[in-house]
């Protein structure tokens, strides 16, 4: 599943407030919850944190991909948070994270979840994509950047 099929501008938050990892995940969960896509926001948060405790999903090059399986969703859902300044997310390279792709999938729907993660990984390899997305002025612009990038990369 392509990221543009998973996200809408309403599921993108530009200007994530500088805070700690737990607060960032809560902000992302709230974005999804505001679209009526969760049956239990607290359960969804706990499910993401269970995975996060195994190893930080803060990767390299400013990318973080918190994710998990959750009974709080009926289908694969996702949200994107963007921080221009960057936030400490315990990333593998020790650098601040700027792009937070959060994915939640029902326990019995692993295929779309795996494909979506793979597509995010491919997109995120492009330095110009990351740079453009971090600089997006609003959620609509960020969504357009994703759609354009998918034509060339995914």
């Amino acid at each position, binding site marked *: 599943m392509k990221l543009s099929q998973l996200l809408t501008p309403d599921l993108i938050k530009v200007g994530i407030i500088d805070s700690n990892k737990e607060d960032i995940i809560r902000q992302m969960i709230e974005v999804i919850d505001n679209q009526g896509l969760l049956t239990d926001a607290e359960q969804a948060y706990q499910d993401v944190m269970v995975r996060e405790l195994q190893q930080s999903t803060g990767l390299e090059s400013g990318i973080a991909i918190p994710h998990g399986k959750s009974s709080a969703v009926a289908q694969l859902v996702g949200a994107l948070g963007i921080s221009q300044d960057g936030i400490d997310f315990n990333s593998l390279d020790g650098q601040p994270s700027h792009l937070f792709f959060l994915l939640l999938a029902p326990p019995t729907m692993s295929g779309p979840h795996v494909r979506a993660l793979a597509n995010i990984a491919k997109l995120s390899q492009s330095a110009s994509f990351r740079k453009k997305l971090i600089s997006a002025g609003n959620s609509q612009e960020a969504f357009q950047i994703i759609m354009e990038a998918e034509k060339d*990369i995914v």
Partner: protein
Amino acid sequence: MSFKMRPEKIMIFVEGSQESILAAQYAVCMAKWLDCTLVGAYVVDIKTLEELTRAKIFVKMEEMDYEKSLEEDGHRYLNYVRNLAEAKGVFIETEILKGEIYKEIIRIIEQEDIDILVMGELEEPESRRDFYYNESERTFRHSPCPVIVVKSRDEIKWMYENL
């Protein structure tokens, strides 16, 4: 592949999409019309799981957990297709494969001497990469046997129900 006067084995490639389930209904119809054996195949996409672990998006334990989940998904989809076939008196064998999707499908086509591959409607390629690297596209292009791509139409459901 051996020479045959008529098809004997039809394979349906199931990946869990609505399109592939509809294609399974058409494959059951074909198997019934042509008096063929049906082979249902699902591939656990090990290559992508390994790539996600290499990219550090997955931890190893998570990769193993997702492999198990995908295998369970495959059993569920293939059981559904088995029920579709058996409800119409069509003999079906099912295969859960593991590896790179298109390579595994091609391997099993050759190993099982499949005569026709049936697959669901292909998504419109949205990028050059999609055109060359989408697993369904690659399966379609590299298949050593004839391929039928089932267009999503209501008539297929009607056809199956009235078989």
